[in-house]
């Protein structure tokens, strides 16, 4: 359903652009019904312009762009992007070191692709259940509440960034610290994973108040 969006310069009937090349090379038979409908709709409706962060190259990843935007301060995208690339480079270097030092049989288990490590680390940091403040009878209770996918991703990225900004030594670079945190999160260790477990325990402890939720 089309709802007019308050702050969009586009007409509500404009659709989001699809940038990936592979989706245009799929033959007709393999599409499901929904995809066919979407395709027909796209053929008639106007489409928004692709934003400058989105590109069809192999190197552009929506998750990475979202993370870069969250790391950005005062609109300094150049700095945020360079930090991100330095982080990925640092991860690659560390993993290669480990790879070359490891014995033959373990060489296959070591993951060297920094994008895979980033995605997996973020997935490991995502909480499953969240807490929300509900005021009932004058007192505010912390009620366990299910989270949407977007919210989970946002919380994981936010925790990672705040963790790196606050708990690092004055002399360590942000890229260095971020790469350390990501590698720890990849192996399910580290302060961010601990924070996630603490949240889960709190939710488990407050199970009694779960019925306060009305949505």
């Amino acid at each position, binding site marked *: 359903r089309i*709802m007019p969006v308050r702050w969009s310069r586009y*007409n509500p009937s404009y659709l989001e652009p699809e*940038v990936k090349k592979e989706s245009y090379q799929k033959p007709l038979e393999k599409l499901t019904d929904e995809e066919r409908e979407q395709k027909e709709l796209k053929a*008639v409706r106007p489409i928004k*312009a*692709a934003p*400058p962060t989105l590109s069809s*190259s192999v190197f552009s990843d929506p998750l990475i762009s979202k993370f870069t935007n969250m790391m950005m301060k005062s609109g300094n*995208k150049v700095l945020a992007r360079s930090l991100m690339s330095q982080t990925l480079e640092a991860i690659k270097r560390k993993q290669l070191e480990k790879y070359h030092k490891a014995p033959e049989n373990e060489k296959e288990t070591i993951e060297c692709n920094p994008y895979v490590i980033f995605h997996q680390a973020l997935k490991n940091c995502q909480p499953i259940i969240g807490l929300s403040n509900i005021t009932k009878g004058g007192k505010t209770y912390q009620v366990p509440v299910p989270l949407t996918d977007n919210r989970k991703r946002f919380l994981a990225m936010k925790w990672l960034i705040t963790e790196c900004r606050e708990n690092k030594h004055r002399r360590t670079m942000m890229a260095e610290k971020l790469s350390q945190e990501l590698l720890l999160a990849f192996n399910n260790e580290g302060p961010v994973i601990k924070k996630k477990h603490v949240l889960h325990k709190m939710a488990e402890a407050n199970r009694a108040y779960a019925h306060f939720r009305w949505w």
Partner: protein
Amino acid sequence: TLRLICTTAAVQRKNVGASGPEKYTEAFIKKQIEEFNLGKRHLANMMGEDPETFTQEDIDRAIAYLFPSGLFDKQARPMMKHPTEVFPEQRKIQWGEDGRPFHFLFYTGKQSYYSLMHETYEKFLNVQKHQDQLTAQDLPLQKEKRNLAGSRWLTKIELEEMLLEKLSDDDYSRFIQLLEKLVALPYADMEENYIQKFSKEVPVQLQKVVIEPLQYDEQGVAFSTGEGKRKTARATAVVYDNGTGKITVNGTDILHYFPVLQDREQLLFPFQFLGRIGKHDMVCTVSGGGRSAQAGAIRLASAKALRSFVTEQEVEFMRQAGLLTVDPRVKERKKPGQEGPRRKFTWKKR
């Protein structure tokens, strides 16, 4: 309330008809119509034309001739129109002489809206019953796709005009949701007549853009030009065939003009999408805007230029990837009484 930024003035017209009960009685309107017709015949006689075949355009021309006015606003000038255009359609009095209302839903306040919802839901239940009967007899469900492409639902203002009643955004969205549910059922074709009352044809606005043919310069190399803009930046790009993939901006190489990786990625985006990275040369000029705006403008210009080199299907793919639309986002203006476009002044308690 939501203010639509990007729609035409026609859509935001105020619906005067639903503002209140009748201000003009029926007898008054009838008299106005008679007077109008008489006046039309007099005017035709005055202008020396046949009263029977005197159209509205003739009336407008005659009035403009007899009462010339230099006023700027067209609606302030003297005009003679049929009373139904001048006096908007309004609801008649909803109750009889004894004070008892005619409609059973009068006391809900929005009688026509609620009666419409009831009717639509009744149709929905009918279709469901029909469907259940057919499944009970084990007949297969036919799924006929409705043509999504050429139709749209009535806007809130049009619906208000139809019902002669003020609606809220919530009411409107509920009604549209119910209509969509009805349309989604397999046997909704039974109620096709009813549904057509609420849907309008949209002229398929593909606006067949004329793709310019390739031009050839002195050495016989094919080239084509394109123009693009983004925020305040304006760019023109000339894409040559049989090239090595060199891109020149304002006389300098892109590596020197755009030190940031993101801008260079944007320049290469159309070529990478079509898979023609090493095959074309580009020379562009750009002015205005900032670093990212210039990159966006050149991207649009190069995508437009590449249309001439490529098949129609690929042009359609480029459009669906968002390469050929002009980005309408510009800097929002600062408003009086606020510090910026959205930021308000610091609130001080005293």
